């Protein structure tokens, strides 16, 4: 019988969606009601841990027997009994379900700073964070170091904002420290709105205390006594864990009045976003906290001079704050030993799309795209690698022949994309680049606040041109019009949303102009994605006459006798793709 059993179940949003709660329950049942002896149960601690990144393998379960860790993947509730019986009771791990080599490869090349404790600590237990060195940074700073010293430390670490713009964090804090004011604010931007990004959610779900600790240090530096976390209401689990963490931090004396007897007081409030992407922009975020429509305002004055309620305000994103305690405890030199000359440290990316290992990864700045995709991501899922979209709706696409590019602020900007908040969507040969550009533009156009003309009307017109192109109604000159209008919108919009909205179009035209030309000149979608240009046909040889497609067809366009090849009436076909999805014999062809 093992002396100490520790079971860790990945309970991020991904894990829970894969059924982690049921797995946890089963463990509890099995351990209490089956033949497992009482001694095991008493020694057994079951932690919920946050996301450790590899959500594609959920539910992931760690069983640690006397310090020896075994990780299981794809665990379903009905598998729990066997794990308990064979592994926990008898000491023989269930080899069939243990993670394979690619699980280790996924983690091997990563360097974890921000995520170092995610998946290890129980996010709902402050002591779990403290046992791994948590709140040591606050203890070492408050009362012992001057704010100026700490700002200097952050500056020398080279930390730059992880929310997208990459502004040096130490400098931002210095700007906000300078003005004399009876009141200053510090805000954590957790309004992670980029489609395809979930770094901030995972950090808050996995290790909320690191964010709180980073904010407290920031507040100490600029002299703020009030803080806000502006978080998306779409992240209920993160909100819940954050609230628990705030409560615990207050109880433990790391928040509230007179922190650690230093005379410094700091409180954090949670503000729930109400669903507007533009509120990720700092002045819009301020307007939203003030209870208004989230419309940005022109800078200057910058929030560091006049922010929330007109007072000096620092806004950093989740990942930025989460880096701070690690920089303070391990030193700025340690932090700046990772990364490139201008982009220091690590960056968390949400690696998704047509790649084998999707999930959350943290790599040193400057790692090559190739290493990320092939070594960590395990290569393509099925198709052939075509491009990577980085930076979400503000970013761009990096084509296949640039796969050796280093991923850092400067290198990506040079090729017309951005690091952004860290979305990384891998695309393969079945993805249409015009459609991808359209997808992002649809998003930004819908999220435009409507305050300034170029973004309000301009993105609408851009989208309409793209619509026409993907519907086979494009005409010559459209590409040039997209380029000039796109550039004008970038140059004349009020805020970052409009200034970057055309990027997905501009970068796809730059690298995939031939696809645009095929749509416009040949009325053809090379990747067979754009509906209006598609034709679905049934391959006579492959069709078994199972009638499934005919049943699925919403417009009764498919006919044929049972067990005989079916046909699609092109006049009736609405090109929904239902037949393509239902056919089990790959008999439906699209081009």
């Amino acid at each position, binding site marked *: 019988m093992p002396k100490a059993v520790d079971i860790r179940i990945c309970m991020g949003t991904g894990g829970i969606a894969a059924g982690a709660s049921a797995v946890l329950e089963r463990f509890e049942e099995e351990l209490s009601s089956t033949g497992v002896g009482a001694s095991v149960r008493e020694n057994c601690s079951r932690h919920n841990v946050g996301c450790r990144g590899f959500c594609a393998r959920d539910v992931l379960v760690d069983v640690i027997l006397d310090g020896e860790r075994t990780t299981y993947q794809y665990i379903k509730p009905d598998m729990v009994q066997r794990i308990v019986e064979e592994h926990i009771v008898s000491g023989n791990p269930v080899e069939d379900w243990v993670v394979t080599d690619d699980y280790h490869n996924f983690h091997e090349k990563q360097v974890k700073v921000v995520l170092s404790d995610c998946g290890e600590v129980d996010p709902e237990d402050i002591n779990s964070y403290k046992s791994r060195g948590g709140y040591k940074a606050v203890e070492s700073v408050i009362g012992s170091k001057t704010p100026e010293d700490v700002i200097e430390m952050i500056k020398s670490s080279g930390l730059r904002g992880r929310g997208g713009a990459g502004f040096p964090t130490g400098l931002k804090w210095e700007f906000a420290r300078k003005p004399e004011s009876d009141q200053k604010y510090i805000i954590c931007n957790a309004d992670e709105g980029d489609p395809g990004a979930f770094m901030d959610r995972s950090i808050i779900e996995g290790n909320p205390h690191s964010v709180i600790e980073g904010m407290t240090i920031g507040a100490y530096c600029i002299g703020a006594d009030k803080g806000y976390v502006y978080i998306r209401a779409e992240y209920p689990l993160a909100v819940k864990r954050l609230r628990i963490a705030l409560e615990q931090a207050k109880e433990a004396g790391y928040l509230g009045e007179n922190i650690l007897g230093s005379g410094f007081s700091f409180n954090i409030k949670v503000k729930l976003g109400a669903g507007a992407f533009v509120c990720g922009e700092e002045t819009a975020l301020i307007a939203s906290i003030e209870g208004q429509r989230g419309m940005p305002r*022109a800078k200057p004055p910058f929030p560091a001079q006049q922010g929330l309620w007109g007072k000096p305000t620092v806004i950093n994103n989740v990942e930025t704050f989460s880096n701070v305690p690690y920089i303070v405890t391990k030193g700025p030199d340690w932090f700046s030993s990772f990364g490139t000359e201008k982009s220091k440290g690590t960056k968390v990316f949400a690696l998704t799309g047509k790649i084998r290992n999707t999930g959350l990864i943290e790599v040193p700045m400057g790692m090559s795209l190739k290493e990320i995709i092939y070594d960590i991501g395990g290569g393509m899922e099925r198709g052939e690698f075509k491009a990577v979209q980085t930076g979400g709706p503000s970013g761009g696409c990096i084509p296949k022949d640039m796969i050796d590019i280093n991923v850092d602020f400067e290198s990506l900007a040079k090729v017309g994309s951005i690091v952004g908040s860290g979305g990384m969507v891998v695309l393969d040969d079945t993805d249409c680049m015009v459609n991808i550009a359209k997808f992002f533009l649809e998003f930004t156009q819908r999220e435009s606040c409507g305050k300034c003309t170029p973004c309000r009307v301009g993105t609408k017109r851009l989208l309409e041109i793209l619509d026409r192109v993907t519907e086979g109604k494009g005409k010559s000159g459209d590409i040039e019009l997209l380029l000039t209008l796109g550039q*004008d919108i970038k140059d004349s919009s009020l805020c970052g949303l409009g200034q970057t909205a055309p990027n997905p179009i501009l970068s796809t035209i730059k690298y995939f102009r031939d696809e645009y030309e095929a749509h416009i000149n040949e009325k053809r979608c090379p990747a067979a994605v754009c509906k209006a240009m598609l034709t679905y046909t049934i391959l006579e040889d492959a069709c078994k006459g199972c009638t499934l497609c005919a049943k699925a067809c919403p417009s009764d366009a498919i006919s044929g006798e049972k067990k005989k090849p079916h046909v699609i009436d092109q006049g009736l076909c609405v090109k929904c793709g239902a037949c393509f999805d239902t056919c089990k014999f790959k008999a439906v062809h699209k081009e």
Partner: protein
Amino acid sequence: MADRINITIDGEKVNVDGGLTVLQAARRSGFHIPTLCDDDRLKPYGGCRLCLVSIEGIPRPVTACTTPVTDGMVVETSNDHIERLRRTIVELLLSDHPNDCMTCDRAGDCTLQELAYFYGLRDNRFWGERRRYEDDDLNPFIKRDMEKCVLCGKCVRVCREVQGVGAIEISYRGFGAKVCPPYERDLNCEFCGQCVSLCPTGALSGKQWSGKGREKDVKKIKTVCPYCGCGCNLTLHVSRNEVIRVSSEPDTINEGWLCPKGRFGYEFIKSPDLLKSPLIRKNGKLEEVTWDEALKFVSEKLGSIKEKYGPDAIGGLSSARCTNEENYLFQKFIRAGIGTNNVDHCARL
């Protein structure tokens, strides 16, 4: 007042008040920068993006209306790049506009039309969906044609910042953004019409102005509002010998703001009920008489009342619509002439 500073605009050195925005400084120094959303009396907004200028040392164009001047600043109000952006912005606005200037009341007095003229925009590179709003606002005074709205937000801001009411707000967002009263009900406010006075296009106008004449037909006559003691300056717009509209200039004592009576209550001028001579009731019927007869009648009556009941039986109530001098004379007449202190004035309320 901030210190005066030196800046350079389009190569010309100018000395300006340091508390100004670039737009204010340029205007006061005689440079023209186009805008739709700016008004000196409102807080800077930065929405229309037409006032983009180049400032040395700042990599991208910035809006003149939101950027404060700093000492030594070098501003360029126009260059190829900026004109290209402005032109695109105007084209975009026109691509979502009814472009029905031939029947619009504001033709000749419309900022958008001027811009289209200036940039020679006969053709438009952009086309697509246009906002369509069918519903008619049944309020008595203000015509709201939101298809012509350019979302400059001046109406919303004046209603909040100046009038302190907040009857309207920009609702929805993006291309669907729309200025409207809550729940898109009919406008139900004080109808001061400040919003109408600031609208740069034909989106807001007076219902009673419709079809009465446009800018080129109008003779403007400055006068003072007859309604109350505030004495707001009015500009009467006269066409075919009829007052068809009332406005007020920003550089007046009332800064161009008016109340509903001053702005919309001018129709009495041509009312057939308007009194043109004094009336005296004779045998139960009011009859027109001469001023001499009327004054004689009043003085006789006042004299007889005073004699019979004493001066305190008489009181005088004066009007805010009279000048100070007239009011002075009136109280003098009541106090010294009649001999009572029973005198009051409606503007005291």
